């Protein structure tokens, strides 16, 4: 039962990924693309968690943690780039 659930969810997440990617490619504004990228990060956190449960191994937790941490940094950097161009000033 759980496995079916996991299977369904992985399907959902896959779909989610695709949708975000579509937005990323489609745009239209650059902000949209950044938003899409951010969403992709979040989706992949979920993806890794599912993967961890799927494999029943806790080894991938840190990966999720890192995405949560670093995804924020890169989003922030991108936005700063749009705002100021110079992200470290």
């Amino acid at each position, binding site marked *: 039962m759980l496995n079916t659930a996991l299977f369904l969810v992985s399907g959902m*997440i*896959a779909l989610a990924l*695709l949708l975000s990617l579509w937005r990323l490619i489609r745009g239209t504004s650059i902000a949209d693309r950044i938003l899409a*990228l951010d969403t*992709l990060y979040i989706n992949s956190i979920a993806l890794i968690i599912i*993967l961890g449960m799927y494999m029943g191994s806790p080894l991938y937790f840190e990966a999720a943690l890192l995405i949560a941490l*670093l995804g*924020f940094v890169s989003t922030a*950097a991108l936005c700063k780039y749009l705002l100021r161009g110079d992200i*470290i000033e």
Partner: protein
Amino acid sequence: MGLLWIPLLPMLGTLVPLLVARFSRSSIAFFTALLPAIALFLLFQQAPAVFSGEVLTTSFEWIPLAGLEVAFRLDGLAWLFALLILGIGQLIILYARYYLSEKDNMPLFYSYLILFMTAMLGIVLSGNIIQLWFFWELTSISSFLLIGFWSHKTEARKGARMALTVTGAGGLALLAGLLLVGDIVGSYDLSLVLASGDLIREHAAYPVALVLILLGAFTKSAQFPFHFWLPQAMSAPTPVSAYLHSATMVKAGIFLMARFYPVLSGTELWFLIVSMTGLATLLLGAYVALFKHDIKGLLAYSTISHLGLITLLLGMNTQLSTVAAIFHIMNHAVFKASLFMAAGIIDHETGTRDMRQLNGLWKYMPHTATLAMVGAASMAGVPLFNGFLSKEMFFAETLHQVTLGSLSWMVPVLATLGTVFSVAYSARFIHDVFFNGEPINLPKTPHEAPRFMRIPVEVLVALCLLVGIFPSFIVGPLLATASGATLGTALPEYNLAIWHGFNLPLLMSFLAMLGGLVIYYNRKYLFRFQAQFPEPDAKLIFEWLMQRLVNSCHNIMQTLENNALQRYVYLLIFLSMILMAGPMIDLHTTEGHKSQIPIDALTLIGAIILAIAAIATVLFNRKRLVSLICLSVVGLIVSLAFARFSAPDLALTQLSVEVVTMILMLLALFFLPQNTPKESHPRRLVRDLGLAGIVGGVIGTINYAMITRPLESISWFYLENSKIGGGGTNVVNVILVDFRGLDTLGEISVLGIAALGIFKLIVRMRLYMPSSDSTGRPWATGRYPMMLSVVSQNLLPLALLVSIYIFLRGHNMPGGGFIAGLITAVAIIQQYIAHGVDWIKDRLRINYQWLIACGILTATLTGMGSWFFDRPFLTSWFDYFSLPIFGKFELASAMLFDLGVYLTVIGATLMILANLGKLTTSHSPAIKENS
């Protein structure tokens, strides 16, 4: 032992002039002459043995592997040449003392001269044919220096280069020829080579070897068609010309032919090449000489023709002709040296060498005139002078030879014709210079040369006469031994006498005389006739050829090496594809028989996203920021793939690296154009796409073929020993810090070096901050969004904690120093982004450079720690401890090593990013690009 000193003393002698440079001119000359004089003396010491037919040799080991040894060998031929070189050398030194002016750097000149002398001696005395070549090239080099001695004169420079080029080329051919001979004989020892004539002549490679060696000889001794460099060598100071033309340089080629006579001669090929070349040279030289207005020019061409004569003699394959050749070598050396010196005197005293100005010098310098006339007479082959005798023998030989069959008669006829011209130009030399009216506006008023300047000439002229009158008494024995040594067999019957009765040769000489005088008498018609032809200037032609060569090379390089990176990269990739194509074809079945993993939906979607993102990165490559965003999606998916295929460490590393790279790219992009202009030609696009497709296909195929085949790797060892030997359960990390620690050390070094290099790049970079973005919109005013700063600063401690956590668990769980380092760095960079450089600079005082150094040092010293336990570098240590409350925990040297990694990563990353942040200084508009 004395033999060794003969070349050795002059070799040392090259330094003498430079050492005594401070002394007076005369004493310089004296000391210069000293060592060669001793050598000459030693040479005479060897005379008895040599004349008794002995062959003296001495040799030392040098390069056994190359069959090279320091070997000297003295036989009659060598003795003769050594005599000429050293004897005439002495006279030249004396002569030069008075010839050279105050301005000239006399010590340098002498040193060159002696070097040249040494080289010549080396050639004639070598007992090893490779060593012979060694000195052969040395003559080319030293003559280059001598000819170019007056380097301020253009023609001197060009003449020198021409001589070097021609003789150098010949030298290389010679080397090839000698190596071939050596291969055939199996040794480079001269005696052995000379002993195995038949072996060589029968060998298939004989023609090749012969041609190559003769190329060497002909270029050196200015045989047609390589004669053109010799006249250019006149631009050297006259003592040099005298030496070059008489006893040395040009004689080297003759010597070579004489030396290898027993080995190479006696075949049709030899005759055809050598004698015909000689004949052509003889005629050409003699004819051209007549029309030269420059005295030295005339003499130069006469040298050419006499060398041709000698060559012709050597080519005729009869023993007597060889004897005649040797005889003429001596005679020519003597009279030509004297003539050049005389010419030098005239030049020196009148300031010109042009015979159209020089007239009637008889009454100004009767003494010199007499000497010159004797020399000229001997050159013309007038009886009672030495030239006559060898000329007679020459005519006799031309009559005997039959190799040309029904055409044989041509040889004596043409020989006579040549002599006719040589008589004519000799006549001109005498009449045109010393008589023929009054001199025409000479630079100087001519008078006799200083006493000692004439002595050398007098000595030589005396020799001309003495040999001419008492040949057998003066040179009989010498000629005999020399010829004997040349032939390597018993001597033929011959008789050195002035009078052989009325015979054909005498008639030919008589005709020659008559014809010569007649021609000179009506020379104006001949001159007028000759004037119709433009005189080809060898120098110009040669220079033109050289220029053509250089230009065409330049064009080739221009077209090939167009300094376009795109082409170079294309070539690189293309070549690798070509090379890989062959084996790919041998690969019969792509798919191996390893059980494969079934595809699951999630991975499939992942792959699809990867593909789309990659393609998007390419398609958007002209909108750089978008392309960058797509790129980071690719990076994200790649790290997910690592996670999917059981590589948590890689996933973590990839993630953190990817973020830092993204920040870096943003920093760089800020100073670069935001969009790429559309400049690639469709053809190029198609071409690149094609190559890219091929590469992708090939790499993909190889990858598929590889991963679908089973593999027995060494990995089992690491899995077994990671815990017991490395003290960690995270095998990947144990491999990094222990099994393959050196890789990691190198890796962090690379990172550190990169940081240093980037710092180097940044320090001097002058870039201006764009005041508005690519669309022209001014930047937002708020520098540090409040919310961002607040959250960033509160995130920092957490991030640090996480990095410590990642660091500590690295040895047993996914993580480790590198990832931890990156997390820390990113956390700090986040502060830079949120608060700005200045704010951080005031609060955070870390010298990143020291951090890097300490990191690498920590890792290295940790590795060296094992030395104290007498174990190799990087031998790890670990142990488990347990304390009452804390329980069991592990300490490992690997941890310390990893700390080094951690520090280096932080140092490097921050050094790069923070300094990049500091970069921009003033707000002035971006660099205008003319695109």
